[in-house]
């Protein structure tokens, strides 16, 4: 029996997801042995797009797509991957819901370009030249760049079979996912590969797990505004923790070191919009209305990893 | 009248006998006052800005603060308009209390000089108000110089004086009733 074929692509991302695979450490050896990695661009293997494009449709068993879709190149490869892969997985929160980098959608592409290439302090660009998608050198050599677009989730471009959350996905979770994949124990198409429960369920600080009720937050604090009591639930102490709303596949790594959960795991299955659920849950946990006004910058807090995949996806132009 | 310089009022000054005296002198309903302030909101003394006006006078009376009341001449500025009596919800008859305080005050000779003047005129001429030059004015109105009151009838005036002599005036008047 031939080994299952795997393709991996990093689109609008930081490479962290690649690292989480590397973090499998010894297990990586087993993985590498069990799989036939046919494409891994641009980070690990020396692969050319044209090689991928040349493969027959449906010839790859599993495609992992990490990073969001940020430009025309990403979009193109996403479509190619979809064509070649039997199973396409949005790997990591960027591919699944846009990730932290989809916060760019609060601005227009023009604004971003101008800021980056004209208005930053370190930039000297008096003629205000902006990158172009194509440039002809010496009237004969055409150089091209992909076209920058709003950040999109993978499923806003192509159909996605499975989603994995995390920024990056925790390597233990990756191991579990890969095992499930290899053993064919997959949930119905379209679902998240996840334990399906919130960070709270695996959080040592959760009073509920000790048989105590959770109390309302009486203040709103940011992490630098105090030193949390390590024994107590961060939310109860006023550090707005998105643990209740976020998939707990990470094993509650951040709260265990007194950092409130920021939601990189993505929403619990059944929740369509991470930020809105977070608004409802967090507002419900505040002792009074005034505290609502003390929450700084709700968009960045509640949509830190999921803006592209939110109900609007971006800021509406006025 | 703005001489009241007491900063702290000592409630132990409360003189129960004074309260009894006021009640005997006509402040029968004194203790029923609940200080609702309805009288104060209509009292000309209060409206005109007198510091000690009806409501405070009554309260001081219920506390038996004799000295404050006797020393303060405000009670003598009461118009006797009786609007307070008409509207008092507790039927305390605030005006009667003012009169009782005045009555207590004259018994210790604490009243304005004009009060004695009026009493003297009343006794002497039968008229408490007895302004000079009235003859001229009466002539202008085409009337005889003297009105047909006790002023015009010595015998009757004497009789009236006999009557007054048998009243409290005999005790109080700082002038001889002859």
């Amino acid at each position: 029996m031939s080994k299952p074929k795997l393709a991996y692509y990093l689109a609008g991302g930081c490479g962290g997801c690649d690292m989480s695979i590397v973090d499998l450490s010894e297990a990586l050896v087993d993985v590498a042995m069990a799989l036939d990695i046919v494409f891994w661009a641009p980070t690990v293997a020396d692969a050319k797009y044209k090689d991928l494009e040349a493969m027959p449709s449906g010839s790859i068993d599993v495609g992992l797509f990490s990073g969001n879709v940020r430009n025309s190149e990403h979009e193109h490869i996403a479509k190619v991957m979809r064509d070649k892969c039997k199973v396409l997985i949005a790997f990591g929160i960027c591919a699944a819901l846009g990730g932290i980098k989809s916060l760019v959608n609060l601005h227009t592409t023009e604004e971003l370009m101008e800021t980056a290439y004209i208005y930053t302090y370190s930039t000297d660009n008096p003629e205000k030249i902006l990158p172009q998608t194509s440039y002809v050198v010496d009237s004969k050599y055409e150089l091209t760049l992909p076209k920058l677009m709003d950040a999109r989730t993978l499923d806003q471009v192509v159909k996605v079979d499975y989603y994995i959350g995390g920024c990056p996905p925790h390597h233990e979770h990756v191991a579990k996912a890969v095992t499930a994949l290899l053993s064919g124990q997959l949930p119905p198409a379209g679902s998240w590969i996840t334990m399906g429960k919130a960070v709270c369920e695996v959080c040592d600080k959760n009073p509920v797990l000790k048989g105590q009720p959770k109390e309302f937050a009486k203040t709103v604090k940011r992490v630098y505004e105090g030193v949390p009591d390590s024994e107590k639930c961060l939310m109860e102490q006023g550090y707005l923790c998105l643990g209740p709303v976020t998939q707990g596949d990470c094993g509650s790594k951040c709260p265990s070191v007194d950092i409130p959960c920021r939601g990189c795991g993505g929403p619990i299955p059944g929740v369509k919009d991470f930020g809105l659920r977070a608004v409802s849950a967090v507002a419900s946990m505040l002792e009074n209305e005034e505290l609502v006004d003390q929450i700084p910058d709700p968009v960045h807090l509640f949509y830190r990893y999921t803006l592209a995949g939110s109900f609007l996806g971006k800021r509406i132009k006025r | 009248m703005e001489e009241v310089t007491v900063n702290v009022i000592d409630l132990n000054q409360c003189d129960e006998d004074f309260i009894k005296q006021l009640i005997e002198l006509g402040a029968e309903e004194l203790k029923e006052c609940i200080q609702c302030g309805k009288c104060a909101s209509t009292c000309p003394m209060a409206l005109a800005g007198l510091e000690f006006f009806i409501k405070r006078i009554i309260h001081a009376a219920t506390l038996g603060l004799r000295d404050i009341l006797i020393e303060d001449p405000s009670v003598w500025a009461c118009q006797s308009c009786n609007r307070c009596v008409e509207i008092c919800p507790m039927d305390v008859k605030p005006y009667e209390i003012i009169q009782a305080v005045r009555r207590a005050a004259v018994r210790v000779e604490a009243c304005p000089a004009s009060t004695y003047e009026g009493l003297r005129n009343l006794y002497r001429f039968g008229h408490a108000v007895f302004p000079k030059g009235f003859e001229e004015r009466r002539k202008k109105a085409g009337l005889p110089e003297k009105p047909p009151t006790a002023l015009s009838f010595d015998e009757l005036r004497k009789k009236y004086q006999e009557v007054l002599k048998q009243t409290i005036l005999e005790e109080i008047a700082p002038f001889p009733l002859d």
Partner: protein
Amino acid sequence: MKKIGLFLGCNIPFNRPDVEYSIRYLLNELGVEIVELEGATCCPAFGSMPSLDVVGWATASAWNLTIAEEKGVDIITGCGSCYGSLNEAKYHMDKHPEIKEQVNKILSTVGKEYKGTSKVWNVINYLYEEIGLDNLKAKIKYNLNGLKCAVQTGCHNLWPSKAYPTNEDNTFNPTRMREICEALGGVAPHYSTITDCCGMGALRSQASAKSLALFKKKLDVIKEEIDPDVCITGCNSCLMQFDAGQALLIEQKKLNYKIPALHIAQLVAIALGADVEKATALATIPLNGVITKIKGGN
């Protein structure tokens, strides 16, 4: 023929005898025989005997009341204080037999006895109830020709209502004087401070400036709300405040308008044809405009 004892008191005969003239004139014109109350004295004024004790007050009042009783007549007065003091004394004596007994004990030494048979009227109520507006209307010689009157009934003519034999239906919205003015052909609109105290009385003698300030407040409202041709008072003390008091305010430059003032008796007397010279002899604020308006109509 009707008969009535004319009680003069002090302020009317000595300060405003023109009001005395007017009362005498109008009673004559209306066919009421005036019975002189010889030997009558001060009512007594509230600051005199009433401020000493109840019995002394009642005795001094009873002296006056018995004079009328002896002549078998009721009493009429144009002064609010007299009306109030006499009626309140009566009320005390009628309600408390022990006071009446003490009073009569004193009076008996001069051969007098208070019985309580004579009623005490003021000019307003006497005109309104005993004469009647129709009778009054029938007798007028000069119509007021729409003269706009601001009426001032006066505190003592209203309160304490318990002590008075007859009174307005609503003492906080008096209408009798307004109806009288209108019967004479004038107009007498309501104004919001119609029952406010004019400030005359003990307040005027003890705190003159405050008394006048209180009066000015009332006068300003009258001016602003109805801007009348004349102020008509039901009480002689009010008249003194409205007339001489107003003149004082003008003299002190605290008032930049003037409204002439008349006692209701003066107004009725003029309408009934009294000699204006005598009927307004002691007025301080000139009445020319008012008189012209009344007489000019004929």
